[in-house]
């Protein structure tokens, strides 16, 4: 199976032996061995998933690397974080997924399933209303502006996050978009802070120390 290791904070190495790995298009910076690259819009999700994707319009721009060798990935100096899944599902904010392989099944989830909150959430994060999911047991890599911060959520300890800083989450979590009356008092300054994502349940939330769409 593919071996993932971090060369440094911002560079990922994946060794493959006659295997295939999917990564964000444009993130390959070097490779050794015999590896062929091809664009892939579907990842490892099969026909049904592909159909779902074309209907929903959520298109991951992926590049598949197949063969034997080592591939190095990096993306605009963003920090890379490795995540191991053991039969769980990871929800990735579009743009935060860097690499994964066929051990994980990818899919799309309609945020509307989570009620109105999900819909507005898509609007608030500016990422659309569909989120990419990865399910199964294996490794994946995400990118974030600054180190990704993992925050634990338990049934008695929910967490509130800025939608723009949200990178992804795993586990059995429910996300709701909440508006605090206090926060509303400074709507109109377009700070984008009038919405907060509230995560309840059991799982882990990943955030970055930068607001997407910020001035950088």
């Amino acid at each position, binding site marked *: 199976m593919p071996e993932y290791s971090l060369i440094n904070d911002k560079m990922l190495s994946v060794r493959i032996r006659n295997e295939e790995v999917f990564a964000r298009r444009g993130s390959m910076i070097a490779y050794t061995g015999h590896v062929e690259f091809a664009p892939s819009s579907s990842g490892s999700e099969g026909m049904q998933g592909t159909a779902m994707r074309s209907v929903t319009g959520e298109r991951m721009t992926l590049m598949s690397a197949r063969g034997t060798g080592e591939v190095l990935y990096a993306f605009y100096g963003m920090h890379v974080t490795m995540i191991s899944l053991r039969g769980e599902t990871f929800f990735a904010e579009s743009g935060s997924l860097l690499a994964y392989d066929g051990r994980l099944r990818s899919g799309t989830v309609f945020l509307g399933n989570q009620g109105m909150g999900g819909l507005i959430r898509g609007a608030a994060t500016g990422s659309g209303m569909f989120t990419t999911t990865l399910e199964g047991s294996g490794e994946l890599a995400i990118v974030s*502006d*600054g*180190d990704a*911060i*993992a*925050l*634990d959520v*338990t049934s008695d*300890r*929910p*967490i*509130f*996050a*800025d939608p723009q*800083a949200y990178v992804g989450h795993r586990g059995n979590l429910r996300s709701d978009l909440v508006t*605090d009356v*206090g*926060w509303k*008092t*400074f709507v109109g*300054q377009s*700070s*984008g*802070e009038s919405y907060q994502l509230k995560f309840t349940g059991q799982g*882990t*939330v990943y*955030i*970055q*120390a*930068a*607001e997407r769409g*910020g*001035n*950088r």
Partner: protein
Amino acid sequence: MIFNSQTLPANDNVNSYAFCMDVRGEAFIQKGKMIAYYGALRFESVSAGAYDALVRQSFNSPLYANDFVVATGQGKLILGDRGNNIDSYDLEDGNLTVRSANVLGFEPSLVCQESTVPGYLTLLGTGKFLASSNGPVHFIEPPVRVDEDALLGWADMPSPSYRYDYGYMRGMFGMARSFVGGRSSGEEKQLDFTGQGAVLVQSSEMGLVGRSNLDDVIARTSSLQQNELHQLLSVIQQRLQNR
């Protein structure tokens, strides 16, 4: 490493780009810099008037009142600023002046006032405050001249003055008393610091994008007379034509 509300640092950096405040009571934070929190916290605009006594005691800046909120309650609050480095500073009966866009938060035991240098806030007293910077901060002892874009702030000393490159000044003498058409590459004008204290410099000439400079200019127009406004208008028009 997965953090929870217990394992998150209390009033310390989570990493170079994120800081966790242990809020017990009240804290001032810059609007828009909260990235996540645990616990029961509320956020009220400084200008909303809900914390009148607190604002009266520690927040003395009408110009920046809309840029700050009061966080109240108990909880762990994580702040981030566009992926910029964040550091905390402890003041002990001291004073530190920082570019206003970089002031991320401060304890109410400090008093926040507008510096006479536009775009800067001065924090006085004893307590902790947070500032962001583009790259790590470097401390320099005066006498020193600093590029305005790289300047983060200064501590325990009088306000700086401008120092112009002599060649640039000669060029200006030749012009018909106009500050209007002066073209600058940014290297011919520095801020000059003298006296005892420390100057804080960030590791990049790229200033943070803050609204403060423009805000400052706009706020000052309210004190101008009609003919002065016309003068300003013609200056702006000339500027735009010269671009």
